[in-house]
């Protein structure tokens, strides 16, 4: 982080206990976030490399370097499956009047801003990667996806689904798949796949909350609210607060997400149920955010983001490993006896994921 962000330069040389004090006492959200991020890096092997670079004085961004800025390009597939399609709007261009194009542009901007302001992350790869999205993909296409290089949004069929750019959290969800690809690289299968999905829901929801300046208790904790047409009996694709309750419809069936490990769904479909079992870690995050109060990104989000970048989060991580790392990082960020760490432990206990004993989890 030190090498990319001028704001971090002073934090890089501060000892952990001072960083903790800054994080605890400052009233400046950005300052707190920077301190927490730097502190998080202290826990990884990257610290020594960064310090070496710092001592060599070669990789610090100049104090007056330009702030990171989004570089958005929105294309249309013109209802074909050709990607990326024809360019419709580039960075700085005025509104086009095409709702999907403009929603994608604004949604990517809001997502970029969230990552930059809260986590000092410069785009998907933290290196200023250009953000590319295609709308009007295929005909009546009821999906949105990340193809490894860009985001893609369907128009929906108009009968069950509206356009997929309608929900900011869905745009944030897709972009976060890119962030996960560039950090933990969680394998898209089984439990690591469900964690991958959960990360996208967690950050997608936080992006929506941030744009609405909502505290955790005021948030709806829904993914894809507004996506269903009025013909569907349902609120959204998923509920992070109450997995399994988002919809119950004659055509779509009932929301299959489990809320606890005892209801974990074993299946070969959907890459081993990645969109189903993600309900469990989704709920854990929601419980932590609600327990701590305030804005979800201030503490719960910091713990989750630190864990996403934790070198110990391997590509095949299961829920238990992830849970242990969130407990470890909560301890490192806020103290082993902190209410934040207790909230994390309580949340995982509620959803039925075992975390190692306090002492061993804190030791990592």
């Amino acid at each position, binding site marked *: 982080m030190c090498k990319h962000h001028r704001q971090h330069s002073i934090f890089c040389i501060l000892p952990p206990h001072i960083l903790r004090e800054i994080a605890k006492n400052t009233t400046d959200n950005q300052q707190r976030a920077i301190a927490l991020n730097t502190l998080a890096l202290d826990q990884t092997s990257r610290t020594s490399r960064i310090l070496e670079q710092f001592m060599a004085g070669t990789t610090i961004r100049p104090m007056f370097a330009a702030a990171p800025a989004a570089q958005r390009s929105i294309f249309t597939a013109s209802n074909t499956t050709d990607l990326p399609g024809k360019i419709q709007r580039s960075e700085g261009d005025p509104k086009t009047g095409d709702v999907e194009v403009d929603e994608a542009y604004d949604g990517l901007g809001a997502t970029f801003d969230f990552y930059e302001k809260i986590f000092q992350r410069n785009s998907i790869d933290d290196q200023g990667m250009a953000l590319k999205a295609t709308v009007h993909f295929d005909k009546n296409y009821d999906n949105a*996806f990340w193809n490894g290089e860009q985001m893609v949004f369907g128009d929906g069929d108009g009968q069950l689904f509206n356009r997929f750019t309608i929900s900011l959290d869905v745009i944030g969800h897709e972009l976060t798949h890119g962030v996960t690809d560039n950090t933990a690289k969680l394998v898209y299968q089984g439990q690591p796949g469900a964690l991958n999905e959960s990360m996208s829901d967690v950050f997608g929801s936080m992006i929506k909350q941030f744009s609405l300046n909502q505290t955790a208790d005021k948030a709806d904790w829904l993914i894809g609210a507004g996506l269903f047409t009025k013909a569907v009996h349902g609120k959204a694709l998923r509920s992070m607060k109450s997995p399994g309750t988002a919809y119950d419809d004659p055509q779509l069936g009932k929301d299959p997400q489990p809320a606890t490990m005892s209801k974990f769904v074993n299946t070969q479909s*959907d890459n081993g149920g990645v969109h189903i079992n993600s309900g469990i870690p989704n709920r854990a995050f929601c419980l932590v955010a609600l327990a701590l109060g305030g804005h979800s990104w201030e503490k719960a989000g910091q713990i989750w983001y630190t864990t996403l970048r934790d070198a110990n989060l391997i590509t095949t991580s299961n829920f238990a490993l992830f849970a242990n790392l969130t407990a470890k990082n909560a301890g490192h960020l806020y103290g082993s006896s902190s209410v934040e760490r207790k909230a994390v432990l309580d949340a995982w206990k509620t959803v039925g994921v075992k975390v190692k004993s306090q002492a061993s989890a804190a030791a990592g």
Partner: protein
Amino acid sequence: MEITFQRSGGLFPGLDVSGTVDLSDENHAVLKSGNYSRQVTPEDARSLRAALAGANTKLLSGDLRQPGKQGADRYQYDVKLKTGSGATQSFTIGDGDLAPAVASMPGIKTLADWIKSHSQDILQNRSK
């Protein structure tokens, strides 16, 4: 020759689609999915039969998706082929790249494209 497929996944996993097409009589092939069915054109049926004839079906087994080239929130297609002799082959493909071992196999792209487009077709017609 019979092809059975099931599509799952996507951002919203509540849109699973399955279908079966019997190609034994290419002039009267029918695609069936629950209460929905429709005639497969003779041209379509011939094209599918030719694709399968050109493919080394013994290699069509297991997960044929190239790891790391699937992205996220895309669809998964589980396919079962039943040959005239009754032998079956089961494999999985996705919307991303095919595994290198089969990517250049004759017929595989025709088969994959047909399954993908007809999964979408079934979904659109089923919800009407």
